[in-house]
Structures are given as structure tokens and as C-alpha cells.
């Protein structure tokens, strides 16, 4: 955990990978909001700039800092990469630039050792699909895994509490939907496998 608690000037950079329609941008924003509640003065979240289409690979980014964020360029060297769709690990270069000592967090039923090995970053895996189905976060047959992965972030970094995630989720959804989304985050927090 010590990796994520450095000097007061540090910016933690998170890159999200998913497909259009998976709620990648929403997750990036909810995380920024939760971090703000947690006391981070500088939080930004942005979509990958450009045209987005359902199903197409997209990225989003979140920056968290104790001080206001002054950098707006695309993230080159993320501390954490969160992948909502496992197929993007091979079709896209999802781990490009991932810092040594950072974390790759993947939505998959596999164990971290089954994802890849020999990297300078750590790997965590969470079966967010199963969790989303368990709490009935399903639209048109597809599991909504974006909020579940917020729980994965909390567990991997330890810099934000589940309570702040709950607060941020409550801002985005109706009470009933918020409850389901938070439950997905909480279960993923509990079940994630840290490699």
C-alpha cells in the first residue's frame, strides 16, 4: 500500500479501459467525486477525447492529488490501469506505460497469475461480471461492471474508503440503483484477488 502514499505533491493517475456503453467514463467520474469526499483537493476525470461508439474500445482517466490538478494532457504513465473488458488486454495495449510498482486491475474470473507474468507491476483480478449479475445489475443481458470496479480500486490502493464510494454513487443514481451499485462495489472489494 505504501506505494500509493507518497509526498503531498504526488498525482495518482488512473486509466480505465472498457467498451463504449460499459460506463467507463461514469466510473472515472464517480472515483474523482469519491476522492474529493475523501479529502483530495485535486480531482479530475476525463473521457478519451473523441467520438465514442457503443462497443468500441474506449479509455477514460482519473487524476487524484492533495493539491488542485494543473495537468490536462492524456495520461502516459498510469499508476493504475483498470480493465473492464478482459479482451482489451490483447486487442488494445491496455498496460502501455503502466508504472513499475503500479497495479493492473482486471475484470475476469481468472487468477492474477493466469493473466500474465514477469511484469514490474502487480496484478489484481475481480470477477465483476458475476458480482454484477448477483446484485442484478444487468441491462439488455449485459452485466454492468463499472461501479463494481470502484470496489477493486479501494481494495488495491487503500487511499479511499468504501464510504466515500457510497456517497459518490448516491449522487449519480436513484436510491434503489445506488444500493445495487454500491453492493457491487462492496462485494468486489471483498472478493478481489491481489496477485
Amino acid at each position, binding site marked *: 500500500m505504501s506505494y500509493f502514499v507518497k509526498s503531498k505533491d504526488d498525482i495518482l493517475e488512473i486509466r480505465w479501459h472498457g467498451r463504449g456503453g460499459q460506463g467507463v467514463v461514469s466510473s472515472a467520474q464517480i472515483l474523482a*467525486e469519491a476522492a474529493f469526499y475523501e479529502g483530495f483537493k485535486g*480531482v479530475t*476525470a476525463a473521457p478519451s477525447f473523441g467520438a465514442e461508439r457503443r462497443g468500441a474500445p474506449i479509455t477514460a482517466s482519473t487524476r487524484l492529488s492533495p493539491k*488542485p490538478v494543473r495537468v*490536462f*494532457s*492524456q495520461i*502516459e504513465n498510469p499508476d493504475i490501469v483498470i480493465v473492464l473488458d478482459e479482451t482489451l488486454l490483447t486487442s488494445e495495449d491496455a498496460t502501455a506505460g503502466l508504472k513499475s510498482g503500479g497495479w493492473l486491475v482486471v475484470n475476469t474470473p481468472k487468477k492474477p497469475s493466469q493473466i500474465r507474468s514477469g511484469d514490474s507491476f502487480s496484478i489484481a483480478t475481480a470477477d465483476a461480471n458475476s458480482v454484477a449479475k448477483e446484485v442484478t445489475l444487468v441491462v439488455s443481458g449485459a452485466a454492468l461492471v463499472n461501479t463494481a470496479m470502484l470496489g477493486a480500486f479501494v481494495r488495491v490502493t487503500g487511499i479511499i474508503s468504501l464510504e466515500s464510494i457510497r456517497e459518490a454513487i448516491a449522487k449519480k443514481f436513484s436510491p434503489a440503483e445506488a444500493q445495487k451499485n454500491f453492493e457491487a462495489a462492496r462485494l468486489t472489494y471483498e472478493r478481489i484477488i491481489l496477485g
Partner: protein
Amino acid sequence: MAGKKTESLIITGNQAAAIGAKMSRVQVIAAYPITPQSPVTEGLSQFVEMGELKAEYVTVESEHSALSVCITASTVGARAFTATSANGLAYMCEQLHWAAGARLPLVLACVNRAMAAPWNILNDQQDAMSQRDTGWIQIYARDNQEILDSIIQAYKIAETVYVPVMVCYDGYILSHTVMPVEIPRQKDVDRFLPRYKPHTILDPSDPRNLNQVTLANPRLNSIGSLCHGYMELRYLLQEAIEGCSETIVAVDREFGETFGRSWGGMTWSYRLEDADLILMAAGSLATQATVAADELRAQGYRAGVLGLRVYRPFPKQDLIEATSKAGLVLVFDKSISYGNEGPICSDLKSALYRSKSRPVVHGYICGLGGRDIKVRELTEAAIRSLLWVRETESAKPTEWLNCQI
């Protein structure tokens, strides 16, 4: 200063703009959707639909019509708002001239985007810079808080000097990026920006002819009063814009007294006191340049940032003073006057002609069509420029940053 605690929201620049317009209690909104501006008007139409904003939302078939509706609304005394980007702003061009010539206090949010062709929906500042000669005041916001605050300020400025104001902010980089924004209390905004009291209203019970054909020379009207010719009216427009920097500074100061934060008036600076090397830009790039200045300082260079908040009127005197102690100024333009150079660079050089202590000015063109600009590219440019000054006699040509041709 606001006593009670205000709320902060984590919102995009577009949401900040919509909230700014709502809190300014605009009465008429007319806009046509264009990326990346669309969420501004979507937000406003929602406010109107939900009854949170008592305004007439006029749907139109083009940007030209959008601004025409705003011009008409303003002419009969309403506070009007529109927003657009890129080709949409270009399509308004004729009406931009009209709004300024008619001296209407409109506010327009320009979400900066590259001009086609070829099609590109990403950020640069070519759209607004290409309209710099239409007679509008132009403010460039450095973050989402400044977008919200500047829209409120813009109405106060426009309604004081009767010149329309364009509040410009970078598409995607600010428009689609969330960050903390403090939402002022409505009663403080109402106190700062009272209801608009127009000086001339087109009213059927008191008919008058506005902006009729105006010939070259002054002449008597039908009741024998000597009226300005076209040239006198244009002189008055120029006089109003050149003279409005005092108003802009005063409005920003009063804003600071009311809300506890202000934005520097015409320009802002970062670590400039002893700076020998100045990075200059407008908008979000200037914010990012402050990180480059920190890195250059860490390497032993006395670097600072000069942020251009208001581009029109161009703050000549402020810039002369801010650069008087520097040896080198790098200007990062996100647009170009084709066949010449970056417009901010050009205008800075022109302003410095009157200065006794002229620094060397190097122009950089960057970020066109959304080309990402990294902090290290700014610091590397600064070091290249310093080397050039040290080792080269001739003037440095404009450099295109990270152009891979």
C-alpha cells in the same frame, strides 16, 4: 465575502457554463447543438424544462438563427445567452459583427474546437481567434471554476459597456473533464448581477428605427438632430472595447469581494516576480504551463507563467509591464493566422513595440486539432529557445510543437 458555506460539485466545464448562465438568470436561450458544446444547451434546456430556470428556450435550425434570436431578444431588453463551437461559431460570423455593431450585451460560450476542413471535433482555439475582429470581448478560462465565474462576470461587463462577451474555454480538455467547482449562492449572484436594465428597448408603444442604413458622413435625421455616420459609430465601438479593461478589472475585483476568488482581471501570473523566462498562453494550456514553470525552476531556470485571460481588448500595457524584466517570452498559440504566425504571439510583439525593455519573443504553434501537449514538451521548448538565444544571431522562426512532418 460569502459567509455561509457553499457547495462544491465535481462537474465538467460544460456543466459549469450551463450553471453560470442559469445563475445569471438568462431570460432567452437559443442554440444549435455542436460537439463539444452540446451539453451546455442540453443542460440549460433541462433547467428550463424542470422549471429551475424561468427562460424562453428557443430551438433553432442553425447557429446563424441562434445568434439572430439572441440579438432580437437583447434588442427588446432580455438577457440572452448562446453557446457554440468551431464551424457553428463561423456560421454565426455575420451576426457576431451585428451583435457588436448594435452594441448588444450578449454572452456567448465558445467551447473551443478546431475548424474544418478536414473534420476534427477536438480542441484548439482557431474558432474564437478567427473571430477576434468582430468587436466582441474575449475571455479565455483556465479551468471549470473560471468558466462559471466568468459567465456571471461577462454579463456584468457586457451590460456596463454594451459590448458582447465571448467566454472561451477548451473543448474536451475543460468541457468534458470534471473537476471541483464551487457553486456560488444564488442570492450572492443576484446581488452581484442585478436584473438587466436595457438602455434602449424596441417597443411597439414607442417605435424607433434601430441600426438603419448609416451613410459615411454624419447627417441630420428627420427631426433635425445630427446623427453619427458609420465611421463615428465604429470609433465609439473601438473606444468602448479599448476602454473596457477598467470595467473588466473592476468587475473581477468586485467578484472577488463577493465570492472570495478573482481571476486577475485581464491577465494572471504564476511565479513571475523574478522570472527571466516567461511561458505565455491562454486557457487551460496556461494552467498546465505552471507545472512546466515549476519543473524549469527545479532545473535552475527562473521561469514563470503569464496567463492571458482577456484577448480582446488586448491588454497591451499589462503585458509590457509583466514582461519588462524578462529576457525571453515563449508564446504558445493554439491557432494560427495563416501566412503569418500565432495571433497571441503577433499581438504581443506589436504591444512590445512601445516597450523600452523588449524581451525576445519566440512563437510556438501547438495543440492543433487536439494534438496532446505534454508538460515536458513545454519545458523542452523553453530549453531549446534558451539555447537559440545563446547561440544564434538570427530570429527564431515560429516552431510547430510536436509536429511530426
